[in-house]
């Protein structure tokens, strides 16, 4: 009985696995095809060509978009990690007047949907001349209320005695945070870092509004507009989609343990 169940589980999971992976295989398969072969239902290309990739890189600013996404997601992640850990620590461990009130204010901003903010952000960026700059892509994400909330939860678990010991050793308040408290929440920080990076790397709604010059597009914006312009040239569109996807897949293979553990931490703490 149990043996049949096991067999059933493996068969079912294998079918599901194929469904989950197949679109990626089809994407790569089409990107390697040429001519009318792209319309054939065979996943093995008649002849393999890397021409489509070369054309995407030549005809578009693909590498620039890649760099832009990397810079924007990277700076945002560093900023979120710095501010959210420090503020999370402050709310968890330092006494000060108005703490609860300020914390509720931070939390209440979680209720505001991004969609409500994009119009004011756009008008603001317009007035201040930020449109089509890195700064316009960056500024909305520099700290996150969710990250502060999450880091506060983790810092609450750090025993006060350890911080007190640092104080007796004569460390400054910032030193206590940096040397004693922060090393104890490193797993939480890496989870927050990974998700901030991924979220910004894949972000679309705000970037598609904030920039309209091809040399400042992020990867998702560039990919969307390139695909729209190359409509019906599916070998090209799939090559572009592959170029955008494959690096993420490679990184995912290396970090999958941290990413999935990170979901446990971030997803369940909320």
């Amino acid at each position: 009985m149990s043996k049949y169940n096991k067999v059933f589980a493996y068969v079912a999971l294998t079918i599901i696995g194929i469904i989950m992976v197949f679109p990626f295989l089809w994407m790569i398969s089409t990107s390697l095809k040429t001519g009318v072969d792209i319309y054939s239902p065979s996943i093995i290309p008649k002849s393999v060509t890397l021409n489509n990739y070369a054309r995407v890189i030549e005809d578009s600013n693909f590498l620039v978009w890649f760099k832009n996404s990397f810079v924007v997601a990277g700076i945002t992640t560093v900023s979120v990690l710095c501010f959210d850990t420090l503020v999370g620590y402050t709310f968890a461990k330092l006494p000060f007047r108005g703490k609860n009130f300020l914390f509720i204010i931070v939390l209440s901003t979680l209720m505001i949907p991004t969609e409500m903010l994009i119009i004011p952000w756009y008008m603001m960026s317009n007035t201040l001349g930020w449109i089509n700059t890195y700064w316009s892509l960056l500024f909305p994400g520099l700290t996150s209320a969710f990250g502060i909330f999450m880091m506060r939860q983790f810092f609450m678990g750090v025993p006060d005695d350890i911080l007190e010991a640092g104080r007796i050793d004569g460390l400054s308040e910032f030193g206590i945070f940096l040397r004693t408290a922060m090393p104890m929440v490193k797993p939480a920080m890496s989870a927050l870092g990974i998700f901030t990076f991924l979220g910004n790397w894949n972000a679309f709604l705000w970037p598609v509004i904030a920039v309209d010059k091809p040399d400042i597009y992020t990867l998702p914006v560039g990919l969307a507009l390139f695909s729209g312009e190359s409509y019906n040239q599916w070998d090209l569109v799939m090559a572009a989609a592959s170029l955008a996807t494959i690096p993420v897949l490679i990184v995912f293979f290396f970090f999958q343990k941290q990413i999935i553990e990170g979901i446990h931490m971030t997803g369940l703490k909320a």
Partner: protein
Amino acid sequence: MKLSIKGRQSMWAYIFISAPMLFFLCIRIYPALYAFNVSLHKWDLLSKNKPFVFLDNFMDLFHDQVFKASLINTGKYILFAVPIGLALSLGIAMLLNSITKGASVYRMVVFIPYVTSIVAVSWVWRWMFMKQGGLINNVIGLFGISRQPFLDSTSQAIYVVISNIIWQALGFYTIIFLAGLKQVPKTYYEAAMIDGASPWQKFKNITIPLLNPTIVYLSVMATIQTLQVFTQVFNITSGGQGIAGGPLNSTVSVVLYIYQLAFVNYKMGYASAATVVLFIIILTISLFQMKVLDKKYDN
């Protein structure tokens, strides 16, 4: 001047939080209030006059057929994507929980779509569901089924988008369910087995009740996320000129319509009114969630 330890600590606390607090004030709170203000004006970005019209924008939204369509479509996205996505992922999580060898490989495979760019996979979907030459039509053709219009059809296009939403979110739900399942003590199932309970009885009387907090949490989260669906709709169903929303607005979502109003037509006041409506819906769901979750803690 000498401060006590407490005084010094609170001084540093204010220094540590000052910049982020300023950020929240300028980048979150003030813009949110500003959006309310804009929603009460006829605020055309290009015209000089921006008269105060009080609730006129909201009245107009009431009679706006496209807005109505976007609300109904968004309801459809939620109604299909959330229950199907949660049921499928619970099934996958239970399968994963029942095996040991290779579980981490399967888990990874199911999770891959969640980390990849929505824009990229949206275009893969679009290609697979092409009427002419798309893979799905080619394959169902082999079984003698006639060519389906999919994205060209007012009735089918939305389901193509829904299938993409489900496929992409499945891995995330599965991971959360799996964590929930791991918390269910094995002894419960063993006791049930001794009592001669059928698999269905075990599922109904042990798994579901014990997973209830996870189910509530995921339903609320998935509902709020799907309520804000934009990228998939924008990329899978945009027309030749980049105006998205499917044939006859059959896939347009609330956020996509807001985007079109604000950044294609520059009707900032009207679009802001729509964002206020969205805000109220999300707030209602969040408050509902707090109520339901609070009840759980009381037990």
